């Protein structure tokens, strides 16, 4: 009975968290309307918020207990977890479902809210009123309550029982208390360490965009139009850093786990985060202009608000099911689209209301900024970022236009662009060129005080250096497109220009170097993206000359090669050999060849058929029971180029729910990555077609020709141990020793058993995967000393491999790191400014 109580408690906590968030919103609102800083409402509202926080932690704990203890009577545990799942992946189960990811988001808001209450004085009440209103909307998404009478369901609860979710299946008629023994498991693509840390980072990024938004609304509400920028700026920077890292982590996960062949796919789900990030970066730039020269306040307000609204819009896009077939990884529709739309529209309305009501009162500068001023160029940069964002969202929203038109009964057949990458890249590359030039140029304009002549004098040297470097790059690489050449030159210019500034700034005060470091990072990222994507090259070309259809010579995409097991194939300047399929085992550092073990059906156990070594050290003795991880199969592929040798293990999972899922293995060189994955494998064992058995009756020492290989029967031995068979003392077992001569020498020992007690004889056949042979020990004729064997042949083992070279990808990762370091430096500087002002009593 107490198991059921966990879910009931959980549901209760969801309801209390919803109610407390509404109470806290009201209380903070009242507190904000009171003139005195320490009013009774404040104390009350804090208590309400802390109760809300406690309830949220209660919800999180309840859900985790359900997953951790495998309470499969709950739909969430059953559909996202399984008995064999390690604890660290149980954390990923938590946010595999939509409800859990909402919960994660709510949780981060609680953490951020607590910090904001602690660090703020005058801002606390109006800020938290906005915050708690958002919390009310978010908790309503997981409340799962049906309004009686109206038959309207609000939210989708993570604590729903399996019985309630699919109560009409026959099992429940026979046994109403039926509980499944195992869950359906976590999506194998999410069983990756990046999936343990990527979602929390991304949702922290989402959550932090609320902070500058709340400051902005609070500023408009309390008529503190200028002051909100100071406390909001460090948070905006923090948000940009976290969201940026979150996006990159997602890209890195896709690169390592999926087989799209890249880190960025212009998938709607990716775009939906990229767009608010661009606008957030634009917002930060306008906030910085305002902090320095008191201009662009209105732009800062609009951009901060837009960032948050875009986060809500992206939530709507990815969770309402509207993307449908246009995205590979959108969530399924939980019937929350209406609720999500209301959430978006309410905040859109609130924002518009506050802007319009105060528009005339917001200070704005008279006259125009000079084109010799820094603010002018930063403003242009922010504009370019917004246009880049607009281009992406305009195309990503195509399914939304279609839905709207259909709602209006207008027939439409509009679909997303076919060549998405081209469509986006053709625009984004020009925006990137502009951003690179501006972020370099901006550094040569000091605030409000530069004259033309001086500018050209200082600009000449870095410009010359960048042109020289990019000319030499052009000379040594195959850069040919004008846009590519421009992007490289512009990126190098920004690296050089910001590098020069960095050297000057570090001498005086390293705390001010954030901007320069971040811009160097951006320059490197652009170079890395250009080379790794623009010059990514498929090297696994099919050179076998076999053509299936000659009708479409132009269409042939011959980018996959077939590798027979133990046959060497040429690929570009490599010699490739596929060595066979491998598996991982508990306590074993490498991969174990599948033929060396016998897998049992039970609990991921296997028996070693022979001693298993790793680097001359025996890990498992013949007959040992090993715990294996059967989900992943690794395909050992040896690469040889001159004296250089290395082995890659691209992996694949044959999953009952999702079919074959391949993940790449990557060889990292300093200047490029070699990325390869299997595209196809033979059908799994069960579906394998064997030839009809041929029988041979031979003596010891005889030779057979099997599948073009010579097989010699070296002897018959008594065996004390047969893997996978329990032999009692009375039973007898013999094995035949075959030696097979192919390119290498192989051994096979099929077994013949006499089980005295059960009065049966049995055979344990042996399969030699490399040769596609199966030998069964059929019969013993003791009088003539002859033995009968059955031999089946099958298709030899093979894999189909795709390999891609990605040049300069490391430059992208280094650039990302620098961008984050730069942002962190900026955060510390801006936060200490806020603290200084707060302690003076200004804020």
């Amino acid at each position, binding site marked *: 009975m107490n198991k059921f109580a966990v879910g009931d408690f959980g549901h209760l906590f969801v309801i209390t968290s919803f109610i407390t968030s509404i109470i806290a919103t009201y209380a903070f609102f009242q507190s904000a309307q009171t003139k005195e800083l320490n009013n009774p409402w404040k104390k009350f509202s804090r208590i309400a918020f802390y109760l809300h926080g406690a309830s949220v932690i209660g919800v999180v704990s309840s859900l985790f207990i359900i997953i951790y203890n495998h309470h499969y009577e709950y739909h969430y545990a059953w559909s996202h977890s399984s008995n064999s799942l390690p604890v660290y992946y149980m954390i990923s189960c938590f946010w595999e479902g939509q409800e859990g990811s909402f919960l994660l988001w709510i949780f981060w808001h609680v953490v951020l809210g607590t910090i904001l209450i602690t660090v703020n004085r005058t801002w606390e009440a109006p800020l938290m009123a906005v915050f708690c209103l958002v919390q009310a909307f978010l908790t309503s998404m997981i409340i799962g309550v049906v309004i009686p009478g109206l038959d309207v369901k609000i939210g989708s609860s993570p604590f729903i029982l399996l019985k309630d979710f699919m109560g009409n299946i026959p*099992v429940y008629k026979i046994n109403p208390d039926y509980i499944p*023994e195992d869950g359906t498991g976590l*999506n194998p693509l999410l069983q990756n360490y990046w999936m343990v840390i990527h979602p929390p980072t991304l949702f922290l990024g989402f959550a932090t965009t609320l902070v500058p938004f709340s400051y902005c609304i609070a500023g408009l509400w309390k008529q503190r139009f200028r002051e909100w920028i100071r406390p909001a700026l460090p948070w905006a920077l923090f948000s940009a850093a976290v969201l940026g890292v979150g996006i990159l982590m997602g890209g890195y996960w896709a690169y390592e786990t999926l087989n799209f062949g890249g880190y960025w796919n212009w998938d709607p789900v990716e775009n939906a985060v990229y767009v608010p990030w661009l606008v957030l970066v634009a917002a930060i730039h306008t906030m910085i202009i305002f902090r320095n020269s008191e201009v662009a306040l209105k732009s800062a307000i609009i951009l901060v608000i837009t960032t948050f609204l875009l986060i809500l819009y992206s939530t709507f896009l990815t969770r309402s099911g509207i993307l449908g077939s246009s995205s590979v990884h959108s969530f399924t529709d939980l019937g929350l689209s209406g609720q999500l739309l209301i959430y978006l529209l309410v905040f859109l309305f609130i924002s518009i209301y506050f802007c319009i009501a105060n528009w005339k009162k917001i200070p704005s500068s008279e006259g125009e900024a000079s084109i010799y001023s820094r603010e002018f160029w930063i403003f242009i940069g922010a504009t370019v970022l917004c246009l880049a964002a*607009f281009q992406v969202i305009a195309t990503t929203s195509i399914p939304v236009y279609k839905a709207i038109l259909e709602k209006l009964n207008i027939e439409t057949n509009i679909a997303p662009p076919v060549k998405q990458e081209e469509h986006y890249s*053709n625009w984004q590359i020009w925006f990137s060129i502009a951003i690179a030039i501006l972020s370099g140029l901006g550094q040569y304009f000091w605030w409000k005080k530069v004259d033309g002549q001086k500018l050209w004098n200082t600009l000449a040297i870095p410009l010359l250096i960048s042109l020289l470097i990019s000319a030499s790059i052009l000379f040594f690489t195959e850069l040919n497109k004008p846009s590519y050449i421009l992007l490289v030159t512009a990126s190098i210019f920004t690296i050089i220009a910001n590098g020069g500034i960095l050297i000057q700034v570090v001498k005086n005060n390293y705390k001010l170097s954030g901007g320069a470091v971040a811009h160097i990072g951006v320059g490197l990222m652009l170079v890395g993206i250009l080379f790794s994507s623009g010059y990514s090259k498929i090297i696994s070309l099919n050179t076998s000359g076999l053509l299936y259809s000659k009708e479409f010579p132009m269409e042939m995409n011959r980018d996959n090669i*077939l590798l027979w097991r133990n046959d060497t194939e040429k690929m570009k300047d490599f010699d490739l050999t596929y060595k066979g399929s491998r598996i991982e085992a508990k306590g074993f550092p490498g991969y174990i060849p599948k033929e060396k073990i016998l897998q049992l059906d039970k609990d991921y156990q296997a028996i070693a058929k022979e001693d298993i070594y790793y680097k001359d050290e025996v890990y498992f003795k013949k007959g040992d029971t090993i715990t294996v991880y059967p989900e992943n199969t690794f395909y050992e592929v040896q690469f040889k180029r001159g004296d250089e040798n290395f082995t890659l293990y691209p992996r694949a999972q044959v999953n009952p*729910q999702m079919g074959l899922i391949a993940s790449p293995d990557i060889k990292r060189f300093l200047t490029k990555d070699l990325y390869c994955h299997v595209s196809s494998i033979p059908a799994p064992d069960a579906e394998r077609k064997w030839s009809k058995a041929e029988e041979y009756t031979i003596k010891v020492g005889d030779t057979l020709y099997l599948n073009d290989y010579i097989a010699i029967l070296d002897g018959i031995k008594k065996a004390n141990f047969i893997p996978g068979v329990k032999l009692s003392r009375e039973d007898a077992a013999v094995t035949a020793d075959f030696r097979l001569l192919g390119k290498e020498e192989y051994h096979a020992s099929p077994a013949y058993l006499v089980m005295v007690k059960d009065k049966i004889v049995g055979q344990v056949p042996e399969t030699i995967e490399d040769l596609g042979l199966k030998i069964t020990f059929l019969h013993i004729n003791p009088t003539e000393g002859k033995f009968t064997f059955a031999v089946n042949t099958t298709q030899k083992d093979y894999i189909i491999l795709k390999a891609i070279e990605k040049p300069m990808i490391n430059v992208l990762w280094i650039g990302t790191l620098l961008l984050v370091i730069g942002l962190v430096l900026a955060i510390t500087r801006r936060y200490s400014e806020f603290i200084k002002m707060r302690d003076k009593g200004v804020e």
Partner: protein
Amino acid sequence: MKKSHIILIVIIAVAIGVIISTAGDASTYVSFKEAYEMASKGDKDMVHVVGQLKKDPSTGKLEMQYDPIIDPNYFSFVMVDTNKEEHPVIYFHPKPQDFEKSEKIVVVGSVKNNEFVADQILMKCPSKYEEKELKTSAVSER
């Protein structure tokens, strides 16, 4: 003219350019019939066709051809579009990984030499994320 006006005009011009290119690059959802009509008119634009895989009603087997030993980059199958019209589709890539499981598929491509050649295949698998079926055979009672 003030500088801000020039900037505004440039912004508007870029925004219009973005909208035009979005509209221009946007593809369309069509039926097989329309796709073939387009090809006969010489229109080479790629289109989206939504449909289902053709299954043998008795065996439940799909009508498809993939023999990686002969050519790993040739895959063909029969698809039935929303107007119940069926056509073979050719895909010059290995067979997509969870192809058999997909319930609804979208092929993106165009008709060439009187055959529909797919450039991309988008699959909607019923089991992909949440809608998993509870198999009673695989579970026992507690």
